[in-house]
């Protein structure tokens, strides 16, 4: 390896005038950071493949459900063509959650945060610009994933009547809502990462909240837990990925005294979680030594 260095110690080939720290510049910097590490391409590829693959596989299972005469479920309980996407997203969201947390915790685990904060000594603009880059990127990839999944579902299963009409406004909201939900979950995970500053701690918490908590809250027959269940971040946010019709069906089967959140109310609950967590993280970022 050559370690030759320029003999002339310093040159002014490029005059550095009117260059300053601006939010647009900051977004550009965070964009380069986001897309220049392998974890980004890995997690987003896994997310894309998982979403598309699961939608196709689950749709296959749905269309092969036996008819009621052959011992299958009664008419009308199985067969909403949006269900495969909901199930796929419940699993595939973990990939974007991991990405969201790592976006900030990897800076702490590698020491990069000190370079970042030296460039942005006011600190908070870095937190916001990183969040924006994450949300925009995940949203874009999620839109692509949903579009491919729905297109393949239409291609393979439309002949069996199992596909969604993407021109129906009643369907567009849950489809776009799925992409919005995924971007928001990435932001939720990012907020926890910013708060905890530690990859393992943040990932364990995020997976616990998104995967384990819903199972525990619904399985334990204790009223307060069941009443709190709809307000879990993942559960509330996923309301936004459902059609109004699906939500009404679900509401009809929910227990007495349990609140049924509408799509927008559910999304609002998820946003409220993020505002609180990211708010505390921002205060701590400003105060703590890096």
């Amino acid at each position, binding site marked *: 390896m050559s370690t030759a260095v320029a003999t002339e110690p310093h040159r002014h080939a490029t005059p550095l005038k009117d*260059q300053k720290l601006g939010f647009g*510049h900051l977004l550009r910097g965070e964009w380069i950071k986001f897309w220049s590490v392998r974890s980004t391409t890995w997690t987003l590829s896994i997310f894309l493949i998982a979403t598309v693959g699961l939608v196709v596989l689950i749709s296959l299972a749905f269309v092969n459900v036996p008819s009621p005469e052959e011992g299958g479920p009664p008419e009308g309980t199985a067969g909403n063509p949006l269900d495969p996407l909901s199930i796929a997203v419940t699993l595939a969201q973990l990939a974007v959650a991991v990405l969201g947390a790592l976006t900030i915790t990897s800076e702490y685990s590698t*020491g990069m945060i000190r370079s970042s904060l030296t460039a942005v000594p006011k600190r908070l603009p870095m937190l916001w610009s990183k969040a924006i880059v994450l949300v925009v990127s995940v949203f874009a990839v999620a839109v692509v994933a949903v579009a491919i999944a729905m297109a393949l579902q239409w291609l393979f299963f439309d002949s069996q009547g199992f596909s969604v009409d993407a021109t129906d406004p009643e369907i567009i909201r849950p489809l776009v809502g799925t992409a919005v939900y995924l971007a928001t979950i990435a932001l939720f995970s990012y907020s926890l990462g910013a708060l905890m500053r530690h990859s393992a701690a943040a990932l364990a918490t995020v997976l616990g909240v998104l995967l384990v908590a819903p199972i525990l809250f619904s399985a334990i027959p204790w009223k307060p837990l069941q009443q709190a269940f709809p307000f879990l971040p993942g559960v509330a946010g996923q309301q936004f990925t459902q059609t109004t019709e699906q939500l009404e069906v679900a509401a009809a089967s929910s227990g007495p005294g349990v609140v049924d959140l509408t799509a927008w109310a559910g999304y609002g609950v998820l946003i409220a979680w993020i505002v609180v967590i990211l708010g505390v993280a921002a205060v701590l970022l400003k105060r703590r030594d890096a």
Partner: protein
Amino acid sequence: MIEAHDLTKRYGSKTAVDGISFTVQPGRVTGFLGPNGAGKSTTMRMIVGLDRPTHGTVTVNGRPYAEHRSPLTQVGALLEAKAVHTGRSARNHLRAIAATHGIGDKRVNEVISMTGLDTVAKRRVGGFSLGMGQRLGIAAALVGDPQTLILDEPVNGLDPEGVLWVRNLVKYLAASEGRTVFLSSHLMSEMAVTADHLIVIGRGKIIADGPVDTVISEATRATVRVRSPQATDLAARLAGPAVTVTPAEDGLLEVHGATAAEVGEIAAASGIVLHELTPLQGSLEDAYMSLTSEAVEYHSAALPGEESRHAGAHAAATTTGEDAR
């Protein structure tokens, strides 16, 4: 120009930096010298706002670092070599930092070739050697073409060519371009050839602050070693307000503050037999030891046979340390 006023940093009950005030002037290389744990890095971190001072202030060119509209063109800092995401290539690391200030790839390529990183710029930083990481850190500090350069132990892990390059670079930036250069080291020898001005810190306090030559000559007072069968008698005659006499071992004295000629004449005048009379030139290391021996945070156990030298350094410190303060 960097101005620190009553700068203090405490971590819990431990005081890392204890009310220090100093000024780093533009146009010269200011060395920041002290043993491990003396508070050098903490001070530098406070200058760029990574650590919040417990009290006191520090400004760069008149205002706190964070208040500048363009921090990276004001100050370039190398605080630790591995403040880098290990999964990112060197070039992308620099591009990302530069982009926050609207600095383009052209300047990034410039600092890459300036620091000799061309061949490894596309490799991921995780596989870099200490020296390569150090070059990358210096490249990141230079990318904004800053008015003020803060380098924490910049020559750590560099090969001799790299050491020479850093030395020439900082001298050039300070002397020819009138920039402010503040660099830390725990190596006195490196400082002696690089810095124009020295600030010596120990246990969070400033021990000495002055031109390099002055700091060194004050710390290295000439010592004369004299051996005599009548050592006790001789010590009594030599001792005076400007002269300290330290008995090293049986019949051997170390005399500070008097020349060999003076010692010889006093001995002759008193009819004292001398077996040895040796003027000792103080080395840089001795100067450093005498400056900081009281202030060393982490003492190593003395090796067998080194006790006498160590004792001498300690004895010297009791006087010169006070003078310097």
